[in-house]
């Protein structure tokens, strides 16, 4: 898994270099949203925030490094007639996403994306989870000015933990500001 992540980051670095030579489209954008824990009875849902920097290498492909942080909610259960609360995980992730197409420029954009990243989940009383994770989903880009667009995405994050995984459905909204047009 670590090798795959290293290769993905290497590909990103090489790709970014090639793109610079050809005149890349580069943007940056904060985003926020909500993570829903799937099939996990020991942690809740929670907000997610982050930043992305899409680099449009060629017309078909955009590579997008990202950083995200999520504060997952607590879980409250009743056992033996008494109520107990388990603190949810704090999750941080960084990695790179490949997007089919571009997120900026003119017109409404629909695009699929898939990525790989390094995830860290921590909470009191649990061993830290530091594993490779994957994400994929669909995004919509809506123009909001000459250099800006609104980005809405829905997808799935999956952190592989040995033979099992922790999965989150995510819905986010953010903006993308084009720093370089790529023309």
């Amino acid at each position: 898994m670590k090798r795959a992540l290293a290769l993905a980051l290497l590909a990103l670095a090489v790709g970014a270099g090639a793109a610079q030579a050809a005149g890349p489209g580069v943007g940056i954008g904060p985003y926020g949203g909500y993570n829903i824990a799937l099939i996990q009875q020991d942690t809740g849902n929670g907000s997610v925030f982050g930043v992305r920097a899409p680099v449009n290498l060629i017309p078909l492909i955009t590579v997008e490094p990202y950083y995200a942080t999520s504060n997952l909610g607590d879980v409250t259960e009743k056992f033996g007639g008494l109520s107990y609360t388990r603190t949810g995980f704090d999750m941080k992730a960084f990695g790179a996403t490949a997007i089919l197409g571009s997120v900026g420029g003119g017109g409404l954009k629909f695009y699929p994306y898939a990525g790989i990243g390094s995830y860290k989940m921590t909470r009191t009383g649990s061993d830290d989870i530091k594993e490779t994770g994957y994400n994929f989903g669909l995004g919509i880009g809506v123009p909001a000015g000459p250099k800006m667009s609104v980005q809405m995405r829905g997808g799935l994050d999956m952190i592989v933990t040995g033979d099992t995984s922790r999965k989150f459905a995510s819905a986010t909204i953010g903006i993308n500001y084009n720093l370089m047009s790529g023309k």
Partner: protein
Amino acid sequence: MKNLRWIVPALLLAVAAPGCVLVSGQFLIDFNLENFTTSTDTVVTREDVDLTTKSDYQDHKDDLKGLSDVAVLGKVTNNGATAIGVEVWMTAGPTAYLTPGQVTAGGTKLWGPFNLAAGASKQVGWDESAKLFSSAGKALLLNEIKGDGQFTIYAIADTGTYTFTVDNGVLALVIDFGK
């Protein structure tokens, strides 16, 4: 450049390929313990745990992969005149130890000490409880969960003499399963 079209589908395929990882999750199983009062004036208190009586455990037994979270919960009252640290010990097979010495000699410390002042009564918090598990105890517990699901636990204290009561005791397990 058109050759690069494979990148997103390839990443999607990489995500989908490990199917056993996709079809997985974390299930909470709780095992209620009898209310009891124990002291050094009597034989140690034990509970024979049989997870096969829990339907969630039975439903996912063949798909068990690990132990994600664990907690001993309940309300503990120190009936004595000195501070105590309550501990839970376990044995893999069925045992019937009579004294704290036999328990510590033949068992594995699972949890504790949960410290209580003289005369104090306190509900064990889930977060607090999760921090009190020993590595060796957790490993043995995982082994038993993956095995026959049957083991014996003992409640003692880390002092020479003690008397305490446990009400609404529960062993809560969060188990990783995967197809």
